[in-house]
């Protein structure tokens, strides 16, 4: 764990896998650091909300404005809310929220743990009778895992508001009708996999941020590198997970129907 050798992708992946197993072990086995978890949830969830809100609002607005012309060409403007809602709920909401969180939370965790590692704070915790894997890592991973879906719910809801406003720039539609139209094409098999996906995204962001922080070598430079590669690896991971989940979801839909 004191190895710095993160240059090689394969050793990075295997290191990450081992780290993940350790994290899961600590997540499942008491004692749990509940206070720290709540504190991290506050930092990760509540404090990220404004950023998510702004982004989601603009996203809903812009997505609607950009999608509108093609639907108008087809004379299917009334499908606009439904189309937007499906793309937001299924894909854009979770993925964009996760990417933003990878940027903000992932780098934050990477830098924080990285600097704690470099300045021996992690060692200090360990000699103070505290398992840093539990106190620092498990709490953060659990917090990101639980907060990300909630951020996604907010993102979805707020981008609906943006979309509603965008729809109303060109036509006059009541909130009620917008919601009816937006919810009409939504199924549980839109929302449930998207939510499961959000949990996985959150978990990945937390684990990768912590891993990169934990891997940090020596010196302040290492902190920057940890933060940076946490964002990069987490972002790539999000896309890979997304692809896998969508693939899985489709094959399950085929099996079911």
């Amino acid at each position, binding site marked *: 764990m004191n190895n710095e050798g993160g240059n090689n992708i394969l050793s990075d992946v295997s290191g990450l896998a081992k780290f993940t197993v350790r994290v899961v072990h600590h997540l499942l086995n008491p004692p749990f650091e509940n*206070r720290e978890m*709540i*504190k991290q*949830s*506050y*930092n990760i*969830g*509540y404090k990220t*909300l404004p950023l998510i809100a702004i982004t989601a609002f603009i996203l809903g607005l812009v997505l609607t404005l950009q999608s509108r012309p093609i639907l108008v060409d087809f004379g299917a403007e009334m499908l606009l809310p439904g189309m937007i809602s499906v793309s937001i*709920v299924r894909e854009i909401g979770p993925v964009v929220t996760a990417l933003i969180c990878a940027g903000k939370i992932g780098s934050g965790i990477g830098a924080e743990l990285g600097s704690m590692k470099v300045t021996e704070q992690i060692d200090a915790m360990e000699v103070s009778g505290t398992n840093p894997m539990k106190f620092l890592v498990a709490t953060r991973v659990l917090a990101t895992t639980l907060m990300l*879906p*909630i*951020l996604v*719910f*907010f993102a*979805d*809801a707020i981008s609906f508001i943006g979309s509603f406003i965008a729809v109303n720039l060109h036509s006059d539609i009541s909130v009620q009708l917008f*919601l009816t139209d937006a*919810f*009409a094409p*939504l*199924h*549980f098999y839109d*929302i449930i996999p998207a*939510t499961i996906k959000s949990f996985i995204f959150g978990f990945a962001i937390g684990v990768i941020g912590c891993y990169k922080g934990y891997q940090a070598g020596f010196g302040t430079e290492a902190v920057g590198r940890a933060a940076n590669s946490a964002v990069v690896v987490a972002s790539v991971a999000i896309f890979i997970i997304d692809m896998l989940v969508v693939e899985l979801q489709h094959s399950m839909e085929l099996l*079911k*129907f």
Partner: protein
Amino acid sequence: MRMTIQKSIRLGVFIIVGIAIFAYAIYIIGKQRNLFGNTFTVSGIFKDVSGLKVGSNVRYSGINVGTVSTIKLVNDTLVRVQATLENKVHPFIREDSRMEIGTEGVMGNKVVNITPGSSTQPVVDEGDVLGTIEAVKIDEILEQLERSSINTTRVTKNLAEITSKINQGEGIFGKLFTDTSFTNNLDEISRNTAQLTRNFSTISGNINKEEGVIGKLLSDTTLANEFDQSGHNLLESTRELKKITEKINQGGGLFGKMFTDTAFTRSLGNSAKNLEYTTRQAKTISENLANITQQMESGRGVINKLLTDSVFSDSLDGTLKNINRSAKELDQAAETLRKNWFIRTFSSKKQEQEQPEGEEAENQQENRGPENQEK
């Protein structure tokens, strides 16, 4: 950073609102898909569900009242579709309500429509099997239509040719102008023929639509056969008429005939009248058939009806027989016409073989001519 009470409250609110958003979405979707509240189920058996899916909407009078909950193959030809409906529509679903697979919008999401039953019928019970209306297979109808329209165009073309020939031949004009009743007759006949063709296509469409149900549920092959037979007969007659028309077209020496042979003209008039009569009859019958079909469609619980009400099936039987008879009559008329023409041919065959054909053809042409002109 210390976790103050204020921060804890903020975090709590954040989580609660987030979960409330999720719960709201789940509730709305669940309400749309009727997963909450009291529901009941009914099912129907289809030959073909045309891409209906679990979760597809079920409508009653155009209102979403539930969703398709299961789709199962019963055997190699039948599919059982179960729908879960809101309890509040329960009182409106009668035992003679029927399920039909329809299409929503242009893009074609499949929906199940449940037709209202008659208020005299008892309300369905949980799990009841409703009667179904098989989806009309569009390609079959189109094929039928195409066949008729090909026939029609051919006839029309012939008529156009005839008209031009008539235009050239003066003798016949005199006849046509003076003898208005004849003209009217011709007119009438042509119109009827057209009508007949149209009716026939409707009927065959309807037959197609219903054939499955009848064949399947009654396993009465005779009835189905009769349907088939009458269709064939009608087609046959039409074809024969067409043949005659074509022959007329070929006939070159006809003009001479027409000028001189009044007997021929008279006989032509007769045949025409004959044909007209038959056509009319055929038309009535086809209307009857259409009516019956409509009745079937408007959902008189065809299964029950056909199984229990022998009067109805008898009358259906009768109608079919009538159709057959009329078709035969039509056939006969055509035959007579041909014979008439044959007599002509034989009398003049020694001189020219094609002439008689031509004559007959011209008769027909004349029959249709006015229609064509009218149009």
